[in-house]
C-alpha cells in the first residue's frame, strides 16, 4: 500500500511530505519530497550587499537564529581576513548566545518530539523554559525570534544592564528543570518502548550518510565542530562532548539532554569571565563607526554613508566556515569575486543532509516509528529547503 504522509502532518515538523510504501504496517520504502518551503535564499544572497544577507540567515533554521548568524559572520570575517580584530567581549557574548540558542533548539525539539510520541505535558514545560531564552533575545536586540544580533565584526549593541542577571537566573534554575524532564521520560515505559532500539544507525552508516550534530554523536562518533575546529574562542571553554552508544532514538535523546547541561556550563563560564572592552571591532570601511563618532568626526560620517549605501568590497576568494548549530554542522561557503556582493553563498544545511538518511532509518520498521525517527534527527524544514 502507498501512504502519503504530509505535507500538513503535525509530526513532520514543518512541511515535509513522505511517500511511504507499506506492507501491512511495515515500511518497505520511504521517499521524502521536499521543497514546500523553498524561498531561494541562496539566490537572493547573490543580489545583496554582504551585511544585508544577514537577516535572511535567521529565517533558515528559525530554532537557532543566532547560530546561523554566527556562521555567516564568521565566514565573511574570514573572507575579509579580520578574524583577529574581533574583540574578546564580542566573541564571548557570541559563545554565550550560541549556547543559549542550542538550548532553545533542543528545548523545542524535546517538546515537539515528546508530543509526537504521546507525552504532551513536555511540550508545555519546554516552551515555558524557552520563553526565558526568548526574553534574553529581546533584551539584547528587541526581537524575540529573528534577533540578527550578531554583526560582521562583532555585535549589534553591547549587552544591556540586567542581562547577566537574567542569564544567571536561567543557569541556576534550568539544570533542575532538565532533571525534571529526565525524571518524566528516562524510565517511562512508554517512552522507552517508543525510542529504544528504534531507527538504529551504526557509526559507519552515520558517517556514510553525512549525519552531523547529536544525530551523529548518538551513534558514538565523537565529532563536534566546536572541539574539532574551534571558532570564536571555544577552545578557552571547558566542556564535554557527549556520545551515545546504541545509535537509536533513545541515545540521540540522551545526547541532547546531556548537551543542554554542557551548554549551561559553557554559558556560566562565559558570563562569569565576560571580558571588558568593545563589543565590535574597529575596522574602518567594513564595520559601522560608533554613533557618537559620527556626530563629531567627518571620516566616521563618510564611512557610515559608504557602508550603508555601497557596502564593502571583499577580496576575491572563497572559504568554507562551519559552526556547530543545534542541528549539526552548519557551514557557509562564500565565493567572492572582488565586488561588494557575493558571487555565491552556499549553506551547508545540517537538516537537509540528516534528512537524506531518513529512508535508511525507517526501512523495515513500523509506520509509527517513522514519527519517532523524524523527531530524532531533529530537522527544520526552513533550513532543508532554504
Amino acid at each position: 500500500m502507498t501512504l502519503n504522509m504530509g505535507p500538513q502532518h503535525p509530526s513532520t515538523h514543518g512541511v515535509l511530505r513522505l511517500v511511504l510504501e507499506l506492507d501491512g504496517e511495515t515500511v518497505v520504502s520511504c521517499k521524502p519530497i521536499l521543497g514546500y518551503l523553498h524561498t531561494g535564499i541562496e539566490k537572493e544572497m547573490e543580489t545583496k550587499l554582504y551585511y544585508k544577507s544577514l537577516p535572511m540567515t535567521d529565517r533558515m533554521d528559525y530554532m537557532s537564529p543566532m547560530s546561523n548568524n554566527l556562521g555567516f559572520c564568521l565566514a565573511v570575517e574570514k573572507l575579509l581576513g579580520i578574524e583577529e580584530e574581533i574583540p574578546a567581549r564580542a566573541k564571548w557574548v557570541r559563545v554565550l548566545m550560541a549556547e543559549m540558542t542550542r538550548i532553545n533548539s533542543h528545548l523545542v525539539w524535546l517538546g515537539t518530539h515528546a508530543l509526537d510520541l504521546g507525552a504532551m505535558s513536555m511540550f508545555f514545560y519546554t516552551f515555558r523554559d524557552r520563553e526565558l531564552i526568548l526574553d534574553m533575545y529581546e533584551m539584547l536586540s528587541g526581537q524575540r525570534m529573528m534577533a540578527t544580533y550578531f554583526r560582521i565584526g562583532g555585535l549589534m549593541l553591547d549587552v544591556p544592564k540586567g542581562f547577566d542577571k537574567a542569564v544567571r537566573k536561567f543557569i541556576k534554575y534550568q539544570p533542575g528543570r532538565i532533571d525534571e524532564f529526565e525524571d518524566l521520560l528516562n524510565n517511562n515505559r512508554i517512552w522507552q518502548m517508543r525510542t529504544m532500539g528504534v531507527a538504529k544507525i551504526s557509526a559507519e552508516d552515520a558517517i556514510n550518510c553525512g549525519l552531523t550534530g547529536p544525530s551523529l554523536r548518538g551513534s558514538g562518533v565523537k565529532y563536534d565542530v566546536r572541539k574539532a575546529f574551534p571558532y570564536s574562542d571555544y577552545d578557552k571553554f571547558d566542556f564535554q562532548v557527549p556520545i551515545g552508544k546504541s545509535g537509536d532514538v533513545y541515545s540521540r535523546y540522551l545526547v541532547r539532554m546531556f548537551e543542554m547541561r554542557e551548554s549551561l556550563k559553557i554559558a556560566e563560564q562565559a558570563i562569569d569571565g565576560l571580558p571588558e572592552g568593545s563589543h565590535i571591532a574597529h575596522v574602518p570601511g567594513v564595520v559601522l563607526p560608533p554613533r557618537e563618532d559620527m556626530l563629531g568626526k567627518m571620516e566616521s560620517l563618510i564611512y557610515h554613508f559608504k557602508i550603508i549605501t555601497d557596502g564593502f568590497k571583499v577580496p576575491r576568494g572563497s572559504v568554507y566556515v562551519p559552526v556547530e548549530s543545534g542541528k549539526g554542522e552548519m557551514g557557509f561557503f562564500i565565493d567572492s569575486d572582488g565586488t561588494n556582493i557575493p558571487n555565491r553563498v552556499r549553506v551547508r544545511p545540517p537538516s537537509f543532509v540528516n534528512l537524506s538518511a531518513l529512508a535508511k532509518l525507517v526501512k523495515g520498521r513500523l509506520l509509527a516509528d517513522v514519527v519517532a525517527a523524524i523527531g530524532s534527527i531533529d530537522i527544520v524544514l526552513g533550513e532543508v529547503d532554504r
Partner: protein
Amino acid sequence: MNLSIDASFMEQSITDFLNNKFPGKVLGDYTYRGQFSLYVTADALYEIALALKEEAALSFDFLVDICSVDHLGKAWESEGRYEIVYTLLSLEHTYRFMLRVKIADHTVAPQSLCDIWHSANWLEREVWDMMGIEFKKHPNLTKIVTDDDLEGHPLRKDFGLVYEEPQFSHNHDEVLITPDNPNH
C-alpha cells in the same frame, strides 16, 4: 600540538599521494585564508575521492558538502564556467580540505559519488536542481527543492530574478495573465 605544522603535513601528504597515484590529474593547489584546496580533473574525480577515502593514512571518510559556483561573465570564466567544490573531512586526523573541479559546460560533469557516500545522493541532486550540472551515473538525478513546474536552474547567473506585476482592479487590463506575458 601545533596545528599549523599538522595542517601543512597533511597538505603535503595529500598532494604527494595524489601525484603518485594519479599523475597529471592534479592541476594545482589553492590556499586562501589558511584553507587548502586542490584542483583536479573532472574525469578522475571519482577515482580520486575513492582513493582518498580508502587510503588508510589519509582516511577521508566524511563527505561534508558538495556545492557549485557559476563564473559566467567573470574575467576568469575561460578557466571553466562552473566550479564544483567537494569538502572532505577526515575524522581520524580532524582535517578538512576541498577538492575542486572546474568544468566548461554542465554536460562534462564528473561522475557521481553516490557509490562512495550515501550523502552525495541528495547533495548532487541539489546541485543539479539549482545549477544543472549533470553528474554522470547518478541513480536518480531529479528535482529536489524547486517546484515541479519551474523550468531552468535558478542558481545559474543567466537565470534572472523575475518581478511579477501584481494584478489589481486599477491595472487589470495592463497585467493580463496570458501565455505571451513572460512573467506569468
